[in-house]
């Protein structure tokens, strides 16, 4: 899923890909022109303080090989390999530049691009053409720069003079400011812009690239992004601990079993009270480390038997091995915790896994089900579904959002009216609802339709209108959708991990399960009249599907839950 960048766009690398071993390809061609494409490793003052980090045809790699020049391949005029985590600390910025060797000017170049490929998949693309330039003889195409984390910026800034002048610029003169981010007109980038985890949970098929087709060869292993890669939601293993099968399936040898209380463990295990000093807190009968073992559960002073060696429910030889998977090898019963977030004792340590993520962006997903908006960034109010605020900090005012909107949506499918509240002020507000997953969608001038029930919150800068899809058989008489347009973020909630389907001639969705679709798609209500409809238990024949018709590149989002 390549994200299309326009001049001035910036993004965190971690939002684009989890990888740090990146391939940067530049395609720049022009009739009769030859180009020198180079990478400047700049310091915090944007100077080339160390010549060894000027990677070009005469110096194909930096000293520790974090930046390597790879040459022309896969349709790219020039390519680099950048290993971000090996770049030394003094290098704060990598600037990729192209200069014309010989005569010519940048307005003559054919459409080209700078792209970032990670793991065989293109994750970012900045397309440019000669129309953006005039008499420049060099252009700074894009930057990787370190601002807390590595980020990528599409620069596209022309520069008079050739490579020498560019060098001089980085060497001595004041580095020019990056152009401010212009209002983008990019294709819908459905990826959450501020996902804390690198994995987008909600990928959408990339929309048709606005750049003219150029017939370049895709990078090795890359496939046309027709379908989204499976969201890594499912990649997480459900179970915490791995399954330790006893070697050879033997009956566990004697050894301290998980339940045992060794009379004198060499290092007192943290936390759970076997320390002599803690026994004072224990009620009588518990944790007595007395030499005379109390009857009952194994605390003899010698070999520590435990759970598993006790005759009453021990490992009867016939019992299937592996049922207590960890027993054979577990040397210290209450020793190091496995993978549970119990790195230390105490409330703070136990809860450290659930800490708030740091601020910095307007919309920040805290986890899959909770999103935070920082009203101070961007300075515009947020409209949110009433009751979706779970927590806020700072001076935030909540006010009822006028009845004009609410009135229009009364009579929504479920009979509830959707009511919004306006959040204004300075501070952070956390939104969540019913443990549904939340997905921020950043609109950059394009439009999306969202089923009204699935709207959680959105920037007030977005224009929205309520639409009614009527159809015979839709519960409540009509399906209400909200069409959003403009520049801003809308947060959509789904029950469960949704599926993003490309619109094909035969794309249908249940009107209760559909969440959102690209606004260019046309919706047709198709009553399901089937010969075999009675074959489905409970199907009354009333079920209504929505059919979507659109040009390729549009998509439909469906949740695994029928409201």
């Amino acid at each position: 899923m390549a994200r299309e960048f326009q001049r001035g766009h910036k993004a965190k690398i971690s939002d684009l890909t989890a990888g740090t071993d990146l391939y940067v390809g530049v395609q720049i061609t022009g009739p009769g022109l030859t180009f020198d494409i180079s990478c400047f490793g700049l310091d915090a003052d944007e100077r080339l303080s160390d010549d060894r980090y000027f990677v070009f045809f005469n110096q194909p790699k930096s000293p520790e090989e974090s930046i390597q020049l790879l040459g022309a391949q896969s349709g790219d005029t020039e390519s680099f390999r950048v290993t971000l985590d090996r770049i030394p600390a003094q290098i704060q910025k990598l600037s990729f530049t192209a200069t014309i060797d010989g005569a010519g000017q940048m307005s003559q170049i054919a459409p080209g691009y700078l792209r970032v490929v990670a793991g065989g998949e293109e994750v970012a693309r900045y397309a440019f053409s000669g129309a953006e330039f005039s008499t420049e003889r060099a252009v700074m195409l894009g930057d990787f720069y370190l601002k807390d984390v590595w980020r990528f910026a599409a620069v596209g800034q022309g520069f008079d003079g050739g490579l020498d002048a560019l060098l001089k610029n980085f060497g001595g003169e004041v580095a020019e400011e990056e152009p401010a981010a212009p209002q983008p007109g990019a294709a819908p980038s459905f990826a959450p812009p501020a996902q804390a985890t690198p994995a987008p949970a909600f990928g959408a098929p990339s929309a048709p690239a606005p750049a003219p087709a150029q017939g370049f060869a895709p990078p090795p292993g890359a496939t046309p992004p027709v379908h989204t890669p499976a969201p890594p939601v499912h990649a997480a293993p459900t179970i915490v601990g791995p399954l330790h099968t006893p070697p050879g399936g033997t009956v566990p040898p004697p050894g301290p079993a998980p339940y045992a209380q060794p009379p004198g463990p060499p290092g007192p295990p943290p936390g759970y009270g076997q320390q002599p000093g803690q026994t004072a807190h224990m009620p009588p009968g518990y944790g007595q480390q007395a030499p005379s073992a109390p009857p009952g559960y194994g605390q003899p002073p010698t070999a520590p038997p435990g759970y598993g060696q006790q005759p009453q429910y021990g490992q009867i030889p016939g019992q299937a091995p592996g049922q207590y998977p960890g027993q054979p090898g577990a040397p210290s019963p209450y020793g190091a915790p496995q993978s549970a977030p119990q790195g230390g004792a105490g409330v703070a340590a136990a809860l450290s896994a659930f800490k708030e993520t740091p601020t910095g962006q307007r919309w920040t997903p805290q986890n899959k089900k909770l999103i935070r908006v920082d009203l101070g960034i961007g300075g515009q109010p947020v409209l949110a579904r009433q009751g979706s605020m779970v927590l806020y900090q700072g001076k935030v005012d909540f006010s009822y959002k006028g009845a004009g909107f609410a009135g229009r949506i009364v009579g929504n499918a479920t009979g509830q009216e959707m009511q919004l509240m306006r959040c204004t002020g300075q501070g952070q507000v956390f939104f969540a609802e019913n443990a549904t997953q939340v997905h921020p969608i950043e609109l950059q001038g394009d439009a999306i339709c969202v089923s009204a029930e699935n709207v959680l919150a959105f920037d007030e800068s977005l224009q929205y209108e309520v639409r009614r899809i009527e159809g015979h058989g839709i519960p409540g008489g009509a399906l209400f959708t909200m069409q959003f347009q403009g520049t801003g973020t809308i947060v959509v909630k789904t029950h469960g991990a949704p599926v993003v389907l490309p619109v094909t001639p035969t794309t249908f969705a249940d009107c209760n399960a559909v969440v959102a679709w690209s606004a260019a798609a046309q919706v047709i209500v198709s009553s399901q009249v089937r010969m075999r409809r009675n074959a489905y238990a409970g199907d009354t024949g009333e079920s209504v599907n929505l059919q979507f018709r659109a040009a390729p590149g549009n998509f439909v989002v469906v949740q695994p839950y029928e409201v």
Partner: protein
Amino acid sequence: MNQPLAGFAPAPVTARMENHGNHMLKVAMQTGNDLLARVGSMVAYEGFVQYEPNPPAVRQIARDWMTGEGAPLMKCSGDGLLYLADYGANVVVINLNGDAISVNATNLLAFDAHLTWGVERVKGLAKFAGQGLWNTKISGQGWVALTSRGKPIVVDCGGGEDETYVDPDALVAWSPNLKVKGKRSFKAQSLIGRGSGEAFQMAFSGQGIVVVQPSEDSTDRLRVRG
């Protein structure tokens, strides 16, 4: 035969309380170290574990808890492995180690019986109708397990000037040293929170943490079942 299920076998016991997955709690039970757990939360056990619903001591402490009907805690004792869950809610295990935490009654799953605990009405909140503004303050050396509908978030109140406001339905737990007060709707027209239309939040100030769940469903399912 059961290859796909093999990955769900219990991991070796390493502590008194552990998560099995995100939604289940595994407790290593031992004689003399009893456990207090929500009635109805047991999903499985092995070994010899006995249950005493509503023991007299608990009834005494929790006499104010909700409106009669007996205390919703049971005392579990014995040796073995005990598995607890609450209708698929996320389980968070905390080793108190001398700290204290104040937990919303519906979000408390289990805790060591030897901990110091008490049921108290949240101060400053005079009229919270219905659920769970009886909270349980727990402190001492031992383990506590909380439930949360969805993965919770922990917010540091920071001790700054600004208070942290929480929807009471989404509140799970907080540090007892925080100052709590109720806050009514800000403006006549603001309607935040669900239900009666009465808008209130709880305001926390001071040094400490607040644990919030991403859901306003504070229904006590273990009680609803009866």
